[in-house]
Structures are given as structure tokens and as C-alpha cells.
């Protein structure tokens, strides 16, 4: 790791200005992902701008919805009474990620910004378009058991590693950002990018823009479940995960929000499935059909063919658990 320069920001504005002034600088909050990437030599910022002193640590509930400051640690959000009772899907997803220690360090903003865990991205000796554009994607013809089945390109088949983001995607969250030119709101679905020809770009954030909060609208879901299937029972990234929120009355699904993790370069919202189940009575057959719809258009590689079968199974199980 180079011996970077370390500065502390005292306002979002000054942080953004500093970020723009030095193109080789990066924001640091919890550091759980960035410090790891720096140790591996995947990124080597000359300057770190520590944003931890910024006043972005509030969780507040209004009639419009929930707002979580970007610097709220994952564990604080997960254990927050309002989050647990009004947005249990988010609490479940948060607790499915990483470890208790990491959740104490990692922030909500940082979680949204975390980079893929693709093995080839992490090994600086191997070609990777995301880390080193133009070098090729090692995963396409390599070991790709963990990789994407939706929305990938031949340039990159990495998946987004976050659990929290899968829940946020399902819950129609909005990411609030601030930059030198002011603030803007980015719908969650538009925040992360698909790889296409620019896999080096994970998000649509502009240089200098800083996440200040994430807001989740008020909703009518009365059932929720986050299912994560992984290679061990905790502290592992998802093979596939499913976030389900349902509004169920008298055995009828009045509305649904469903998203998947571990299948794409961004949290994968299942709009067609939501539409399909809405207005229908809960049944095993419904969920089985919903799972088939979810997997339509999936493209697999040598080692991740199982994700279609597992994806379907996970959707059926998550819907079953949520609705029971």
C-alpha cells in the first residue's frame, strides 16, 4: 500500500471539492472494503478523504418513509427498532451480510459502494476489465461458479456482493447524493450499472459525488423475508439471495416487491414476477410458476448453471417463508 495522504473532511461540500481537485483521491468511511482493496493493490488512492466527521448518522422516520444517513453503521441500522419493525426486510438483509464486527464498521453508504468479490478482480496478476479496462474478463472462460446469470456482458460477468442493496432495490429506495453542484436523488434501480462495455464503472455516481443518505418510501407490505443461500451458514457471499416483501390479505397477494442478489452486476429486481403474483392467491403452484418467470432469460456459464435451479428454489422458498 502506498503511503497515501490522509485528510479529514468537515463538510460534504469540502469533501466533494477535495475529491474533484485530486483525481487520485477517494472517500473513506468504514474502510472495510476500501482498505481491503488498497491492501490488495486493486486501488491505490494518493489521498484518502475521511468523511466520518460529517453529520450523516441519523435514522429518521417520517410519514413519507425512512431515511438512513450514509454514515450509519450497518449494525446500527440492522438493530434499529424502527428498521426492525417497519422495514424488517432491510434488517434481515443487513444481518445476512458480512460479520458482526464488519457490520459495526461498515456504513450504509459504503455498503452501497462496495465492489465485487470476483476472484479475478481481486487478483491483480490476472486480466480483469473492471480493475484494468481492456485486459479482458478472466471469468467468462474461467471459474465462474459465483458469477452473473443476468445482465452480464462479455466484458464482465461479476456480481454485486451486497445483501443490503438487494433489500433496498426491492423496497424502491432512493440514494441521496451531494456534489459540488448541489444534491440529487437517484432511484435505487438507476444507481448501480450493468457492466456493458464499461465494467470499471459500478455506479452512476459522478466524480466528487458523495452519498449522504438512503431513503425508503413508506409501504404497505406486511410480510417480508430475506433468503440467502451460501456455501456455509454464515459469513459468506451469496450463491443466490432473494428479498421478498408482500402485502397479503386473506391469502391474496395485493402487492409484491422481489429482488435477487448474487445473480447480476447490480441487485436484480424481478418486476415481472411481482406483476405476476400480484392479485393472486398464495399457492405452491403460483410460487413455482413465479420462479420460472424469474429465471427467464438467464444466461449461464460453465460453473454457474446451478444458479437457475437454485435461483428458482430460493424464490419459491423466500415467497413461501414470507407468506407463511
Amino acid at each position, binding site marked *: *500500500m*502506498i*503511503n*497515501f*495522504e*490522509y*485528510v*479529514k*473532511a*468537515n463538510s460534504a461540500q*469540502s*469533501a466533494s*471539492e*477535495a475529491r474533484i*481537485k*485530486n483525481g*487520485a483521491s477517494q472517500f*473513506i468511511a468504514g*474502510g*472495510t472494503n476500501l*482498505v*481491503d482493496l*488498497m*491492501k*490488495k493493490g486493486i486501488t*491505490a488512492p*494518493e489521498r*484518502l*478523504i*475521511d468523511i*466520518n466527521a460529517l453529520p450523516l448518522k441519523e435514522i429518521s422516520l417520517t410519514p413519507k418513509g425512512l431515511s438512513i444517513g450514509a454514515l450509519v453503521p450497518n*449494525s446500527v441500522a440492522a*438493530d434499529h427498532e424502527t428498521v426492525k419493525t417497519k422495514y424488517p426486510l432491510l434488517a434481515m438483509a443487513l*444481518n445476512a451480510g*458480512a*460479520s*458482526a*464486527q*464488519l457490520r*459495526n*464498521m461498515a456504513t450504509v453508504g459504503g455498503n452501497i459502494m462496495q465492489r465485487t468479490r470476483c476472484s479475478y478482480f481481486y487478483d491483480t496478476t490476472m486480466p480483469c476489465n473492471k480493475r484494468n479496462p481492456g485486459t479482458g474478463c478472466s471469468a467468462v472462460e474461467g471459474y465462474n461458479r459465483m458469477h452473473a446469470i443476468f445482465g452480464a456482458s462479455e466484458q464482465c460477468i461479476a456480481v454485486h456482493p451486497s445483501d443490503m442493496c438487494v433489500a433496498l432495490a426491492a423496497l424502491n429506495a432512493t440514494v441521496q447524493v451531494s456534489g459540488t453542484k448541489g444534491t440529487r436523488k437517484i432511484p435505487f434501480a438507476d444507481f448501480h450499472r450493468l457492466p456493458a462495455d464499461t465494467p470499471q464503472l459500478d455506479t452512476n455516481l459522478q466524480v466528487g459525488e458523495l452519498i449522504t443518505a438512503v431513503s425508503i418510501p413508506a409501504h404497505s407490505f406486511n410480510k417480508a423475508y430475506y433468503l440467502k443461500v451460501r456455501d456455509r*451458514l*454464515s*459469513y459468506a457471499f451469496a450463491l443466490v439471495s432473494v428479498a421478498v416483501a408482500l402485502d397479503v390479505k386473506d391469502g391474496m397477494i395485493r402487492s409484491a416487491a422481489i429482488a435477487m442478489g448474487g445473480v447480476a452486476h447490480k441487485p436484480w429486481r424481478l418486476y415481472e414476477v411481482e406483476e405476476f403474483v400480484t392479485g393472486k392467491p398464495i399457492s405452491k403452484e403460483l410460487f413455482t410458476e413465479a420462479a420460472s418467470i424469474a429465471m427467464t432469460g438467464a444466461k449461464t456459464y460453465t460453473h454457474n448453471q446451478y444458479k437457475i435451479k437454485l435461483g428458482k428454489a430460493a424464490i419459491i422458498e423466500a415467497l413461501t417463508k414470507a407468506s407463511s
Partner: protein
Amino acid sequence: MHMEEQHHCPRESRRSFLKQSTALAALATASPLLVKAAENEEKINAYFEKVPLQLEINGQLQNLSVEPRVTLLDLLREQLGLTGTKKGCDHGQCGCCTVHVDGKRINSCLSLAVMNQGKKITTIEGLANGEQLHPMQEAFMKHDGFQCGYCTPGQIMSAIGCIREGHANSAEDIREYMSGNICRCGAYPNIVDAIMEVKQGGQKV
């Protein structure tokens, strides 16, 4: 084999060596000077690269000077001789380096020391009260919550965090919330027993 000089690492040559002036200042006053440092200036450069840091470690105030890249873990182990905190992976993947920062368990390998300015750090060495062991230390001995002992400080610090956070209400709960601490000797069931006992004993941790 030829050994000529090669400037193949551009990020090195872009670096400023006048860094100390900006180290802890607010950004508005950050130095605009970015002086190109040639590779052979690196050694001089390094002299300026340390920044002052004040931490309270196990109740003792420490005035230190560290490079920003030094992690809290390496500061403890290599500079302060507090080797009770262990390095098992250096990437936040095993929990051996767990310490408390302002009472919360974290992975010290992923925490830059400079980011802990003014904070209270508790390591395994700061847990006992003189000769009086912390209840969790006693419980680990009683239940043989270890074999080789290398992951043990991290397990103990994490176990205390687990109870403080309210996630030690059942064996299943403990297993989930302790899963960030890997024990390759496989003392897990004994560790769970130790935590259950401390939790049920109701002592303040």
C-alpha cells in the same frame, strides 16, 4: 538479466511529499502544492509522512506518530508490543484481530490507525482488572474455549461484543453473531458454552 532503472509504477511518481501540512487540517486549507516526487526522493519523502495520533489504549493515553497506511492492528502489534491482538488474515475475513473501539467490536486489520483519533481502544490485554480476569476470560478457561489459543483474544473480545449487542440470547443466536471469528482448531461448541454461561450469569461485560 538486466538491472536498469525502470519507472514502471506511475502512481509512485505522481506523489506529493509535502504532506504533513495537510495531514489533519480541514480540506478548505489543503495545500494545493502537488510536487512531483521522483522515485529516488522517496526516502526523504517518508520522513514527512507520519502524522500525529492520540489514542487511549487500555486506559492509557498514547501520543503517537504513524504513517496513515498503518492499520490499528499493526500499530498495536508492531509498534506498541500489544501482541495479544492477532493477525490471522489481514483482510477482515477471520476475526482474530477483533478489538473494541469505543466499546464496539471491530476488525482492527481494516481500520487505519489514524481514523481512530481520540478513540478508546480496548484490547485483550486491557480486559482483566489486575489479577481479576474478565468473566469471559474465566469462562473460556472453564469451558476450554480454545486449543492453540491464537484466535482466542479475538473470540473473547467478540464474545463480549456479542453479549453487549444483545445477540447472545440463545446458542443459535450466538453461533450466528460469532461467525465472524474463525477457529481452525474447532473450539466452537466450547466457545458457545462459555458465552452462554457469561450471558446467563448476568454479570456486566
